């Protein structure tokens, strides 16, 4: 019983970051409501809906992170599953390839189990080495070759982009004991979630306030240079300020924050490109004001693997 309580207890660092998240949510909700009261408009309506969704998402993220690691890993696996399930019909992989799609779903629990059990080598190789061959072979075995190049390209891509990347977050629970580091894997996970989430918000905010020149006018006209630079710089500073959640030095945290922000932007841009080609505005409607799972998780799934490797390099390898 004592062991259970110990596993559920929340350390001081994590309590702090939850308090910060709560403050941001309360402040923004208040601000938008006052703004909406004084001068109602389309933008503030959207902000209200988005903030309401952020409340729910933060509640889910924090609750899942603070629960037992098994619950956290299952929650992350569910996000991967929701991404695949949302994207396969959009990518038209639901007709002839449905049996192989089921196999791709089955890859998710295996990959996350490998992460949870700490089988590092197999975890790193399972999707990009073994499934990279198995999935195309299963497609070929069906005996139907029409349109197969498309499925052979898309299915392994979907696994690497939305399962393999995301599953690195489950790997945070298998970092070795680091001297002087007390926030634990839960702290690291919240640090990452906070950085990517605030990155999206700040790039949006900077873009809305001072955005002038579009970065990728043909892909996503809403992304501006001002938003990108402002967002990346702010996130770098926030990463340094919150480094009590990590085993990192100040400059290491700054570099990690910078990389997470840039990777988040890249993921966002890639998802925009995919959506543009498919002729859709959002990947779905699961989260009011944000769109589907991909619209919210594009940054998370792209930045997860770089984040894990940076933490591993700075915290474990470089620290000796």
């Amino acid at each position, binding site marked *: 019983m004592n062991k259970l309580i110990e596993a559920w207890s929340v350390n001081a660092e994590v309590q702090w970051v939850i308090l910060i998240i709560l403050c941001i949510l309360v402040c923004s909700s208040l601000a938008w409501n006052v703004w909406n009261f004084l001068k109602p408009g389309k933008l503030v309506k959207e902000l209200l809906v988005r903030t309401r969704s952020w409340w729910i998402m933060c509640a889910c993220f924090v609750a899942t992170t603070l629960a037992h690691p098994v619950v956290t890993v299952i929650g992350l696996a*569910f996000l991967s599953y929701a991404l695949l*399930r*949302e994207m396969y019909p959009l990518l038209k992989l639901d007709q002839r390839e449905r049996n192989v799609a089921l196999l791709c779903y089955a890859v998710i629990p295996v990959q996350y189990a490998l992460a949870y059990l700490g089988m590092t080598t197999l975890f790193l190789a399972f999707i990009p080495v073994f499934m990279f061959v198995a999935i195309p072979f299963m497609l070929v075995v069906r005996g139907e070759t029409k349109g197969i190049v498309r499925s052979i390209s898309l299915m392994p891509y979907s696994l690497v982009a939305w399962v393999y990347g995301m599953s690195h977050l489950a790997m945070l629970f298998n970092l070795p004991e680091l001297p002087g580091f007390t926030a634990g894997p839960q702290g690291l996970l919240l640090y990452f979630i906070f950085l990517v989430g605030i990155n999206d918000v700040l790039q949006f905010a900077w873009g809305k306030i001072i955005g002038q020149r579009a970065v990728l006018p043909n892909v996503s006209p809403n992304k501006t240079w001002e938003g990108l630079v402002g967002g990346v710089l702010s996130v770098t500073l926030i990463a340094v300020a919150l480094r009590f959640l990590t085993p990192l030095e100040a400059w290491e945290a700054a570099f990690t924050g910078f990389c997470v922000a840039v990777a988040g932007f890249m993921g966002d841009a890639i998802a925009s490109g995919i959506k543009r080609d498919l002729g*859709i505005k959002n990947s*779905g*409607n699961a989260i009011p004001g944000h769109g589907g799972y991909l619209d919210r998780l594009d940054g998370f799934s792209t930045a997860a693997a770089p984040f894990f490797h940076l933490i591993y390099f700075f915290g474990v390898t470089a620290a000796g």
Partner: protein
Amino acid sequence: MPARTIDAELFNARVPNGRRWLLWFLYKVLWRTVFGLVIGLRYVWAKAPHPDGPVIYIANHNSHLDAMSLMTIVPSHRIHLTHSVAAQDFFGRSRFRSWSMKHLVNAVLISRGKEERDEIDPIVLLDAMLRQGHSLILFPEGTRGVPGVMADFKRGVGHLASRHPDIPVIPVYLDGLYRTLPKGRTLIVPFGGTLVMGDPLSFPAETSIDAITEKARLAIETMEQDLLEENKIPSSDSP
């Protein structure tokens, strides 16, 4: 097999308490969880509140999952009084099928063709059921057609609604469940989908059968169009 009579069928449609809880658990707990979390069905609820008494639900039909998904939107206290109307010739083919349709789906089986002898008129039966306070789930297309193409509606819904002007008709548009379980396949592979529940329609007593059928069809088609428009990139705007 003895000839079916209206009274026997009405008696059959009554659900004992034990099965009522089974149905509640199956649809409001089990299937609801499966649809929400595993299959990823998005529910778009009606703006108007759900009517209290008997209701006729109508929906487009592309998958065996359609009836299950409609049962999950029925209010808990009426789940045992709500019956999907299913084809006798398909679902009554084996004893296992007809048993599970009765006990697990709470369906009422009717004959589609007129050639089956000794059968009761489906409209008379369904009319009697509505009068006794039951709700019905109808698929007016009559069969699971081609996805994305809505077939002409059978006039059953018009017959029933014109006889019961006080009973509201709730149109439901189902999108995407045909991917998860297409016609002719048995393997369920989750691919999401959307269930749009419309506001209740009511028809004045003098509305003709054909007009009701047409309006019901139009309501579902409008919901289909709205859903299509919802996620298109406006030509002038950006993603």
